């Protein structure tokens, strides 16, 4: 078996050195009735060729997004990742390295984590960021728990434009502690009108921009309203490329910013692994969950990096930890860091403008179609259409024409009839003019 170095001779020699006659002598503590005497009745080992063949056949039973004209978003976006990114993250020393608990042999990892934390702070306009979390949705839940700790209050308001997965993950996270979630309905007011809901019991108000429907929000007034009442403003960003074009939440008064970083450096991967970004103000740094990398020096005065402020974390504070989280999303953070290093200031801004420009052009063409209404006055690279009949049906019909037209909102809100006719359409730099024309023409024909 190609992954196991021992030959039968080796095993004999090892047993002899131990003083055991049979391998099961080493399993002597297992209750006899529980020790399996034979391998389980499952397929035996297979060659690399056979495994590759089986999994390739399985992969061929799905339709990759790139083989169709695709306009899916709703929290995960298809962007072009330069070839250098995937090559670099597959270097052994990045791919197969452990968590950097021994800094003398982990300066590679720690160095890029420090760069990553800086990039996230810059993008979001905040003071500090952590070394990443599982994804945007769990980062959102962690932000609410952090607001709970900081303010010692028991209530959070979730604005109606928050991605339902983020709302659900947050509700799940607090269900067994004394904490109330006020989840506003999607048909309710814009984020800007939420100010009146904040009171002295509110730990935080959570707003997404661009929101689920693609609308952009100016949060300055809401930030002031929250701060007046001693509450925190948590801002969620699910399409991080938008930060290349739009005023960052930090400039609008956010106290905590959480985001999904998948758009930069990471493939869609059918939903995971993704990359949670988490940033906050300097004064809250000790209440931040997750790993943190900090600068220091070694014995010879050489600048280096270490994991720091570990006393917040589970392995030290145990039941008083800021979170039970142990891992971050290391390799995904590296991919983000490398891609963003390649893009730089001008590249990210240009990428954002290309995305927005394609979306504006597409929205205008779609708005010209009979029966189709673009609901957004503002958007980045994603907007909501109202169709004359249920969007889910239309999407199914267009699959037959090799088009993935968008995410019908009924997929995310199956019990809300007001969503049935709504379609979320996202477009990125990976869509061509032909893709856009195909979508417009197909809709014209089927509607």
């Amino acid at each position: 078996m190609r992954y196991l170095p021992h030959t039968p001779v080796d095993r004999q020699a090892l047993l002899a050195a131990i003083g055991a006659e049979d391998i099961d002598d080493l399993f002597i503590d297992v209750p006899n009735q529980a020790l399996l005497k034979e391998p389980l009745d499952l397929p035996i080992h297979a060659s690399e060729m056979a495994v590759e063949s089986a999994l390739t056949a399985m992969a061929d039973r799905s339709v990759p997004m790139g083989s169709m004209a695709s306009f899916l978003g709703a929290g995960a976006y298809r962007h072009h990742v330069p070839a250098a990114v995937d090559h670099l993250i597959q270097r052994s020393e990045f791919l197969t390295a452990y968590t950097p608990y021994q800094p003398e042999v982990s300066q590679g990892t720690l160095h890029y984590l420090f760069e990553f934390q800086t990039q996230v702070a810059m993008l979001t306009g905040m003071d500090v960021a952590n070394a990443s979390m599982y994804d945007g949705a769990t980062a959102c839940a962690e932000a609410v728990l952090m607001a709970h700790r900081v303010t010692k209050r028991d209530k959070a308001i979730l604005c109606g434009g928050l991605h339902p997965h983020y709302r659900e993950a947050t509700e799940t996270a607090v269900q067994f502690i004394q904490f109330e979630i006020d989840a506003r309905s999607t048909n309710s007011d814009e984020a800007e009108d939420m100010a009146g809901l904040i009171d002295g019991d509110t730990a935080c108000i959570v707003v997404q921009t661009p929101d689920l429907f693609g609308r952009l929000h100016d949060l300055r007034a809401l930030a002031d309203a929250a701060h007046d009442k001693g509450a925190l403003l948590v801002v969620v960003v699910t399409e991080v490329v938008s930060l290349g074009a739009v005023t960052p939440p930090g400039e609008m008064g956010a106290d905590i910013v959480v985001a999904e970083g998948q758009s930069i450096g990471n493939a869609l991967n059918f939903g995971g692994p993704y990359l949670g970004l988490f940033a906050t103000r300097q004064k809250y740094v000790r209440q931040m969950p997750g790993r943190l990398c900090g600068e220091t020096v070694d014995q010879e005065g050489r600048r280096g990096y270490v994991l720091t402020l570990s006393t917040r974390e589970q392995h030290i504070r145990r039941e008083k930890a800021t979170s039970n989280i142990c891992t971050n999303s290391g390799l995904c953070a590296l991919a983000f860091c490398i891609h963003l290093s390649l893009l730089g200031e001008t590249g990210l801004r240009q990428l954002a403008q290309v995305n927005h420009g394609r979306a504006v052009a597409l929205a205008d063409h779609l708005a010209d179609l009979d029966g189709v209404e673009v609901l957004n006055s503002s958007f980045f690279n994603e907007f909501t259409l109202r169709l004359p009949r249920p969007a889910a049906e239309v999407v199914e019909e267009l699959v037959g024409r090799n088009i993935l037209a968008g995410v019908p909102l009924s997929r995310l809100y199956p019990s809300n009839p007001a969503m049935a006719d709504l379609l979320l359409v996202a477009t990125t730099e990976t869509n061509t003019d032909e893709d856009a024309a195909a979508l417009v023409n197909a809709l014209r024909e089927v509607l």
Partner: protein
Amino acid sequence: MAGPETVTTNSGHSGLDLAEPLIFELDSPGRCGVDLPEPPDAPNRLGGLERSAPIGLPGLSEPQVVRHFVRLSRNNFAIDAGLYPLGSCTMKHNPRLNEKVARLPGFADLHPLQPVETVQGALELIDTLAEWLIKLTGMPAVAMSPAAGAHGELCGLMTIRAALEAKGDPREVVLVPTSAHGTNPATAAICGYRIEQIPADDRGRVDVAALKEKLAPNVAAIMLTNPNTCGLFENQIIEIAEAVHSIGAYFYCDGANFNAIVGKVRPGDLGIDCMHLNLHKTFSTPHGGGGPGSGPVVLAEALAPFAPIPMVVRDGDGLNLVERKADDLGTAESLGRLKGFHGQMGMFVRALAFILSHGADGLRQASEDAVLNANYILARLQGMFSASFPGPCMHEALFDDSFLKDTGVSTLDLAKAMIDEGFHPMTMYFPLVVSGAMLMEPTESESKTSLDQFIASMRHLGERALAGDSEFFAGAPYLTPYRRLDETQAARKPVLRWQPPVVEAAE
């Protein structure tokens, strides 16, 4: 005569040790490593929220970026380079086939919200892996969505609480051994429980009599790791499970150490109610410098109704995703959604490739080799090093610092000296039940030659420590590009990001 200690260079590099600054220090404004189309020159729809201030990101070309990250990579140890005897981490070989198949477009280029009929292959992958995990553990159900081990632990304990709440009796206490990993009490707190500790006996196992004394009607669950964090199989585990069940409580098993028993023991046969698995430990998905992981949780019948959404189900001829709580979908009692989308698909592909490659016979052989290797280390070191408990051990061997008493050498110092010998340090100061713990887990990936080299180095270091050479140890490591780093300074004056230098105003 010139040597490494006396030769200095102009560049600050040192042969193949190439120093590298931060990307922010390599900036040239306007430079870019990606070519993009010209954006259209048209009015925007950003609602007046255009970004005005610069972001501050540096501009580099592709050659510079590649060189930067290649240089960084050379300052990392990695399993591909050498042995990590890290107890509880299972640093086994990461097969490259896993990387190849994970990148097939039919897995990697799928949007999670594509129409379900266009992603049948992906759902099949998840379902196939789920079946293997169910059969390997002997449990009836599995929740695939948790993103990591700690997340899986949270999921498991939440299903327990949900099950108890459904009976109107949530209870208050979770029992945790003193040897438990820190995630256990942290998780219990998030579920609204307080913990009570159960001591270990002098054989390193849970003190069953002490446990039974603590089994009161207000106990919701016990959280046990098996094999435990001392590397030992809890031989009274069936009795423990029965006692826990007799008071209506549940048994959560931390599956971090599953590598010792895959194909040899099914945790379901031991009486557990739920167990998380670490795909990045037992099933070879790469550690990636700290993630991503994946933590599916196997569940007993009593807990299965509370499993999180979404889940993959068979539906007529094909597979479907159940994404909401509803009576007609059988998920009315689900504890809810744990994260965005469906789970760590990229890690599922890798884990399944590993499982299919090994098969039932290979997985069983891997566990046997893992246990064999750990016992070999125990046998060859225990004369000199103080083994905390008599053997045999499972897949990891526990030593403590009692043999270093009066030498002036600590576990930490010994660990730092291992680095110069070409090994990553073992797990140190965990579990907390012994002083200065040294937990060594070689995994099945190490050859006898590799083990012998490791053992010889450890014995050499042990001899040197016992000879009282504490000054040598206090200064280790000597041969790495970076010497010991000042963690106190990093914690006292945290600097968590680069800042642009302050430009002095011209006088």
